[in-house]
């Protein structure tokens, strides 16, 4: 049963986060930046359920965002798949049971995703202003994401624990 319920709950969370991001949070510009609720939800899912869920949720979230905004299909998926996998691995290894793990993950991933997106858009030939993306928007985005980390993480943890017993990410022993 858990095999079906868990992916369904993750799917619903990702879908709701993507729709809210596209309709509400992208227009909530504060101090020049906008919060990224999709990334926050992804961080929480990946930390709580591991790298496979993280990568899958990242791909699905990116696909929904690109579909809803009629953007280039695959761009957001690529970034969020890698982000979800990395956070998942961090959650399975050094980040397990660390209270600061969500905050560290959100801060680092917000910066890395932004740099990754800049690189990807540059490679695709889109005219982008590094100043606007990195100087004007990034500091405010990191701040807003950090402010929202705790409530989003708590909500996701509650939603994932609903109707199932939470096991958390499986610990992995690193070899070599």
């Amino acid at each position: 049963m858990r095999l079906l319920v868990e992916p369904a709950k993750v799917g619903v969370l990702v879908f709701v986060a993507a729709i809210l991001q596209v309709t509400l949070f992208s227009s909530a510009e504060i101090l020049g930046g906008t919060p990224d609720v999709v990334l926050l939800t992804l961080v929480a899912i990946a930390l709580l359920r591991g790298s496979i869920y993280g990568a899958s949720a990242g791909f699905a979230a990116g696909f929904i965002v690109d579909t809803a905004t009629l953007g280039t299909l695959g761009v957001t998926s690529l970034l969020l798949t890698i982000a979800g996998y990395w956070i998942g691995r961090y959650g399975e290894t050094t980040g397990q049971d660390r209270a600061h793990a969500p905050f560290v993950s959100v801060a680092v991933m917000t910066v890395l995703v932004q740099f990754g997106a800049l690189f990807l858009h540059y490679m695709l030939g889109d005219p982008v202003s590094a100043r606007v993306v990195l100087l004007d928007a990034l500091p405010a985005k990191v701040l807003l994401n950090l402010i929202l980390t705790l409530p989003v993480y708590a909500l996701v943890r509650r939603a994932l624990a609903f109707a199932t017993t939470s096991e958390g990410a499986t610990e992995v022993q690193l070899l070599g």
Partner: protein
Amino acid sequence: MAGLLVFLSVVLITIYFREPSNGGLHGVQSAGATVLRPFEVGAERIAQPFRDAYGWFAGLVHAKSENSRLRAEVDKYRQLAIQNEGAAQVNSDLKKQLGYVGSPQFPGDYNDVPTDIIGRSPSEFDQQLTVAAGTSSGIRAGNPVVNADGLIGLVTKVAHDTAQVTLLTDPELKVSAIDLATQASGMVAAGQARGTLILDRVSKAQKIQQNDLIVTQGWRFGDLSSHYPRGIPIGTVSGASQSDLDLFWNVQVHPSVDFGDIRSVLVLVPKNHRR
């Protein structure tokens, strides 16, 4: 598993980037956007009262100073309207006598499709909106998008029930424009800072003054014509400078439209017009 998803993402980017706009993947995206549309509209409607409440309180802060400024503007424009009405009548008569053929005029040569904003691009890389009308409402790529304040942007992608609007503040969009007072012409593009505009390619021989209104030029060359009809407000000149080394004026334009607070738009769909 993660490697497979990364590979799949790269495949999606490659196919989407290379196929034409009526390709298979674009079709899948269009169908997906149609499925997502009710959810976006629903979320937008739920959020609307909260936005309105915020806007109401935010508006109260500036209401008094704005009221006196707007009263002064109304007086000024009332006078101008009276003068313009007479000039428009003379202009119309002269055009009839000359058999003058011009570029498409707004609003006469356009049907407007009013529509809601149902989404915004979540990244800072694309200054784009998603609107709740598409090909089913007659919208095509290349249709200009306006609101009561002025030009917002251009429809760049269309699905059956949604369309993507690229804003004037996106680096990819450039609009030929003129200074309404001096007739100096140039190209409006996104400025260096976010949400700002510049008027580029204005030669030094032309005149530019602070607070001049910049509007779309609406050019026509043979069978080709601009996407934008003439005379849609873009913004006002907030600063202009030149140096001996520059070939053109450096003109900063303050946009007429508040791009952070767009709730609904009009998509201008050309009527059957020789373009």
